């Protein structure tokens, strides 16, 4: 009951956040976003035709009216149709979000799990050769741009000039085998880049915990190091780890990964969002912005609930962390 009441309170408190994010985003979209009119008017438009298209796009209506319409769309989750393809936005999202999720999930899980694992090892051997080796490798991973990692893995593992083990591009989830074939190289590229950042972050968190008094005390009592690591260090490090992990979820669900999707020909939400930004496809953009904001509110709620799970001292009562 406590969790339910807390969730309701938190969701209600998230409404101003959603309103704020959507208002600012909509302002930017309307006043600084691309004008789609000239893409839709053809080669020799008359002033009348331009006005007609602007009216169809809603550009001639007052900002407040348009924003109210946007709020109605958020409440009903009906964002109309894409101005580029005329396909319903809900259909586009329903088709592309699962693809982005399936694409990003293995890399996300592996990147974080391996990051925590390597961070634990590095922290355990803090200052030693193993630590330096892991941190040096992390720095190398961080230094390589995502784009280079993608192209590099694609050439190395997929192309005729490389090992030619996986498809260069495409997406197929009809069987688990097909899925694994198509997701492996994007996952490796993601893990290669994310691992460095994750390892460094998690190591810093763990090292900070290692220097706390309760850890020193536990050591003084002669508790085995593995037990100290699990009970005293890892458990107490979980709050920042959970925060980082949960707050990454909305980006995975909605933003996808433009580069991965473009280079590997994967029909996810990342490419759709990018195309919407550069072409000024407002219905799609509005949906992506609104859903991202809503998911962040949900992520915030989940984070707080997870805090409670990993740290019993945390209360979900009136005053929250």
């Amino acid at each position: 009951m406590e969790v339910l009441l807390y969730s309701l309170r938190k969701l209600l408190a998230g409404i101003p956040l959603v309103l704020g994010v959507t208002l600012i985003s909509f302002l930017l979209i309307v006043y600084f976003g691309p004008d789609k009119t000239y893409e839709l008017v053809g080669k020799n438009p008359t002033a009348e035709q331009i006005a007609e298209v602007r009216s169809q796009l809603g550009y001639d209506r007052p900002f407040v009216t348009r924003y109210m319409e946007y709020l109605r769309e958020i409440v009903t989750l009906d964002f109309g149709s894409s101005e580029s393809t005329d396909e319903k936005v809900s259909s586009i999202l329903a088709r592309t979000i699962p693809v982005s999720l399936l694409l990003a999930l293995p890399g996300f899980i592996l990147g974080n799990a391996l990051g925590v694992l390597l961070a634990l090892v590095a922290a355990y051997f803090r200052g030693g050769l193993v630590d330096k080796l892991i941190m040096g490798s992390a720095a190398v991973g961080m230094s390589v741009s995502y784009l280079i990692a993608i192209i590099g893995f694609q050439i190395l593992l997929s192309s005729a000039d490389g090992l030619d083990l996986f498809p260069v591009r495409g997406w197929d989830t009809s069987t688990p085998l097909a899925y694994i074939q198509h997701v492996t190289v994007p996952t490796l590229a993601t893990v290669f880049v994310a691992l460095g950042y994750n390892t460094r972050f998690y190591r810093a968190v763990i090292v900070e915990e290692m220097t706390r008094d309760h850890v020193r005390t536990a050591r003084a009592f002669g508790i085995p190091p593995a037990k100290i690591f699990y009970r005293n260090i890892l458990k107490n490090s979980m709050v920042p780890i959970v925060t980082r992990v949960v707050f990454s979820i909305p980006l995975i669900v909605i933003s996808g990964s433009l580069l991965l999707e473009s280079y590997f020909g994967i029909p996810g939400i990342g490419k759709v969002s990018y195309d919407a930004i550069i072409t000024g496809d407002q219905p799609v953009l509005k949906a992506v912005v609104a859903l991202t904001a809503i998911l962040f509110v949900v992520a915030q709620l989940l984070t707080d609930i997870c805090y409670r799970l990993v740290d019993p001292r945390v209360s979900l009562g009136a005053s929250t962390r």
Partner: protein
Amino acid sequence: MTALRTVKNIALCFVAVSLTAACEGNGNGSSTPTEVKTFHYSMRSSPGSLDPARVSTVSANVMVQTLYDSLYAYKYLQRPYELKPRLAAAMPEISDDGLTYTIRLKQGIRFADNRAFSNGRGREVVAEDFVYALKRHFDPDSRSVAAWIWQGRIVGLDEWKRNGADYDQPVKGLQAIDRYVLQIRLTRPYPQLVHNLAMGPSAAVPREAVEFYGREFSVNPVGSGPFRLISYDATEAVLVRNENFQREPVSLAEEGYDPITQGQYGLEVIDGRRAPFIDRLEISFIDEGSARWSSFTKGNEVQMAGVPAEQVYRVLESRDPVVLKPEYARKYHMSTEKEAGFVYTAFNMDFPETGYHPDPVRNERNRALRCAIMKARDWNARNDSWYGGLGEIFPGIIPSSVPEFDPELSRESVEYDPEGARALLAEYGWNAGNLPELVYSSQPGPTSRLFFEQFRGWLTNIGYPKEKIILKTYATFADLSKAWHNSEEQLLSLGWLLDYPDAESSLQLFYGPNRSPGSNSSNYSNPEYDRLYEATSVMQPSAERTALYRQMNRMVIDDCVVISGLSRVGIALWHKNVVALPDNNFVGGQFLQYVDVLDKAVGSAVR
């Protein structure tokens, strides 16, 4: 440690299964059964809408030509391009005054099966479908981008729109005389009409499908073309053979086959057979050159692709003539495709700093300034830097892809002449102090930046102060497009693809009434040019019309309104087991219905 162990186990399992999958699958994830003859094609960009009324890009045109049928088409192999009937039974009967076109349709042609039809079976294509398709362009709800083609040309069509675009109301100049006869009455002669009836926007569209799908008709195409759509997203379209597509067997002789220049492609195997020859057409939309190239060279993915500019030097033994290196020639067929269009840099004449000026003396000095900038342009350097040295440089705005091209025209306007440019500036009193600022507008990105730097380099070479040549970047193409349509840009680097093989398609770019927001982005205004344009716009192709076209071309060159031009030449490669000759010019994509795929092992067509 249990949680950590679990995560580790999952990770290890994933890697193990991945490697097993990789070893077993050898990278071919396709689940397509082997007996299905599939052709994997690639295009650079996703088409967006597949509605014939919304066709505005090359890739969209390719898709529409593959899914829909138009009345006429260009012969597959004939060059120069020549029209032939497609859904029409014959070429149109044209009245003596050139105003009435009577077009008879083939009988028994059916749309692809689709649930939009009452019983799911595609019904017969009739003349009324063309009436409906053309009316749609004037219906605001269709959001047509192609209405300009027929605007003011068909009797009563503009009025039909003004009267509320009611499809049940007839249009005087657009009538189905009977089930198989279409009649179009023009307000004035329009010699390009038949070309327009070969374009995607003229395709037959079934009214019930538009009404059934509403706005989503754009992603649920229902046509009578050789293929029908199975799936479509931003990265790929999958099409299968339209079982209802029954046409005459291919006659290579009638398609203009030339065994001397086209004999190496093995096209003889399609002679006498009914298209299409493949069961499944998979089109990948790949913007990234490296990904496209890797997919193509892999062997079991994309089977036909353009060579990315950065790979041109790697694959070619020589550029003139274009010859593949032996290791590529062994594996691939090759053709070069010169675009039916050109790239150019236009001065916006609305800017008094470099364009029209009320003071006649300054006006003349501005012309000299533009001519000097034109002379400063090193087209060969641009060609080598960006187009693999393969592009065709030509003077003016009539490229060699149209019959009105003038091979005898002086090439002075495309010759690199910095000395001449400096002399011209000095003669007209221009110096570093009084030269006006030049604002070069572009999209952001390294390529655009390098284009600008090269341009600025040419101008500094003739004494133009570097700080007076300014780059103005826009966040997106849409922003840039808006600015130039509103005549806000002084200098524009543009590309233009002709809609049909008639120089009128590029001459319209400088016709006064087409000024911004129209296609005359230069806002060129020359009464004599306009007079000739109007005179030629009603003339059928003739030596007289060609002479007038060429006269207009010289006017544009003499007034130094545009720095032009270069037709880019692309290299297409395709696997040896694919029988095809790609061509995406004009209505592009029609070649896809003639593609065949051979059995690699046997070396013969899989039937």
